[in-house]
């Protein structure tokens, strides 16, 4: 393989890793606070749709991005209310949001633009192909810093590991969890915005195509830590880049490369290579003492 091809492959890997990384970092905030977030797929779609629609109407991609962040936080708030206020099963609530936001954006874009669930094509100058990549990779050290060096990060980890102790120490468990879940939605929505107004130039029905779940896999593969999660996203992005590059060229069927992230995740979860330990209070609703 020539050098140019390899460089192109690496660039493509970084681009493909970007939405995964944003969604995975989002998931990291939520899950380190103790709230399972399998709604990343729905959050990506909500972000992608909002970004494309608002950019279409305003002509300004940064307004679209801001709107996507807001939309992502609001959708995540829905998950938060179900899980924190109503103590719903977090996996079930996440599944509900995934189904709901497979439907809502498609329904709305169908109605707004008389289409089969897609938004109109945006002109090239209204796209932001690089900004989300920069945001994604800058967020890795930022997330590390927030998590490990700030009072908020300490509280976040505390409510995810031992909410009783955090509560006794005066931490408002619910408030921290709400904040974490909303950050999670905001970040995942940036990933979604990248899909619609970065990588491509419109929102299409189900355009996330399972990336929310690959992000979840990367988060587990990265042991719920920012840097490792980034490396996992890059690995999975590389696998995707490779499978695109090899389409029709190589003897290896693309399906075998596509399943690499999923197989690796199972292997890691089963403890065959290293062990990935979840935050201790993950998935357990907490009732604050008054």
């Amino acid at each position, binding site marked *: 393989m020539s050098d140019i091809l390899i460089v192109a492959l690496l660039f493509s890997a970084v681009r493909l890793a970007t939405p995964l990384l944003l969604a995975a970092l989002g998931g990291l905030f939520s899950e380190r606070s103790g709230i*399972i977030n399998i709604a990343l797929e729905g959050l990506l779609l909500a972000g992608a749709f909002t970004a494309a629609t608002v950019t279409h109407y305003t002509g300004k991609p940064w307004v679209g991005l801001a709107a996507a962040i807001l939309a992502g936080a609001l959708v995540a708030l829905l998950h938060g209310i179900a899980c924190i206020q*109503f*103590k719903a099963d977090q996996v079930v609530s996440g599944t509900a949001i995934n189904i709901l936001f*497979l439907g809502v954006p498609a329904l709305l874009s169908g109605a707004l633009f008389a289409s089969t669930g897609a938004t109109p094509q945006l002109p090239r100058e209204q796209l932001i192909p690089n900004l989300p990549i920069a945001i994604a990779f800058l967020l890795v050290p930022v997330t590390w810093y927030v998590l490990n060096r700030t009072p908020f990060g300490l509280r976040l980890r505390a409510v995810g590991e031992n909410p009783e102790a955090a509560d006794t120490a005066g931490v408002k468990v619910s408030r921290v969890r709400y904040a974490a879940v909303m950050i999670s939605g905001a970040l995942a929505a940036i990933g979604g915005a990248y899909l619609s107004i970065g990588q491509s130039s419109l929102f299409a029905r189900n355009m996330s195509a399972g990336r929310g779940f690959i992000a979840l896999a990367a988060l587990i593969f990265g042991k719920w830590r920012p840097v490792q999660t980034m490396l996992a996203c890059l690995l999975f992005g590389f696998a995707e880049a490779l499978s695109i590059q090899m389409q029709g060229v190589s003897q290896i069927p693309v399906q075998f490369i596509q*399943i690499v992230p999923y197989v690796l*995740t199972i292997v890691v979860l089963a403890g065959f290579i290293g062990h990935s330990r979840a935050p201790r209070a993950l998935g*357990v609703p907490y009732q604050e003492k008054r």
Partner: protein
Amino acid sequence: MKLLRELLFPLAAVAAAFVVGAVLILAVGDSPVTTYTLLIGSALTWPDGIGYTLFYATPLIFTGLAVAVAFRCGLLNIGAEGQLYIASFVTAWVGITCAGLPALVLVPLCFLAALAAGGFWGAVPGVLKARFGAHEVITTIMLNFIAIALASYFTQYHYKPPGDALLETVPIGENAHIARLGRFVPGFPERIPLNLAFPLALVTCLLVYLFLWRTRWGYQIRATGANAEAAQYGGIATGRQIVLAMALSGALAGMVGINEVLGYRYRYYDSFSSGYGFTGIAVALLGRNHPVGVILASLLFGALLRGGLFVDIFTEHVSKDLVLVLQGTIILFVAAEAAFRGPFGRRIKGV
């Protein structure tokens, strides 16, 4: 009285979801009354509406049962989608490779293939959980993607008819076909794909009920789901129950292959499932993880799938995605019901 209470919350959740849907319909500029009349009305016409409603309900009964059985053991099987894909492909594979066998042998063999393939794909996360502590939610999500990719690979590279533009296998042998109900019901045309898999689904509901509530194995599964530690203390090998429940769950999901391959398309068709595995979660939750509830919820969602197609065509703005909105909202409301039953904390590891 108890029955009334059991019915009250699911009905309230459905009603609430229709209200949310109505708001969305109004927002996009259509009339909720017209849309809902179309949605429900088109599912109740004879013979097409009712025929297709029952046809769409059939896979949902299987996946709903699958999710419910796992739930009874305290497990959330998000993998019904992958289990039904693998099972459908293997069913088609047996139907293709053993096409020469007589129907009396081939049909049961294909049934067995569906059950075994689905059961195996379900047992894998069961073993991973019981033996290695890997959480079933994540492993089943991952196994979904692996199943779809594998079936797609074998279809594309080994069983696709040459020159076919669609990603599908060659047809199965005619001896593997199971009859459509049109053959037995007067006035019911055979073009409607409702087939023997539907009565089979109803019988399966009865069998699952008897298994869970009338056998020792069923009791042990439910005891494990109710309180794993207490069950273990009482001498139940909970690890084995987890594997058994997941295998059974997978086998039930796999039965979708009987409806899809042997009764409808007579081949494996890539990405045929419109999320039956995920709708199965909604079905199980709404049906309170009980076989009778599963039938009722499947009929509702089957009707929505049928009516959705008409909403898509005959309304100005609303698309069949409305059905997804209703489905998602129903699950959300049913999930939030936990607050009214007191806290229930499922210990989750590795999500």
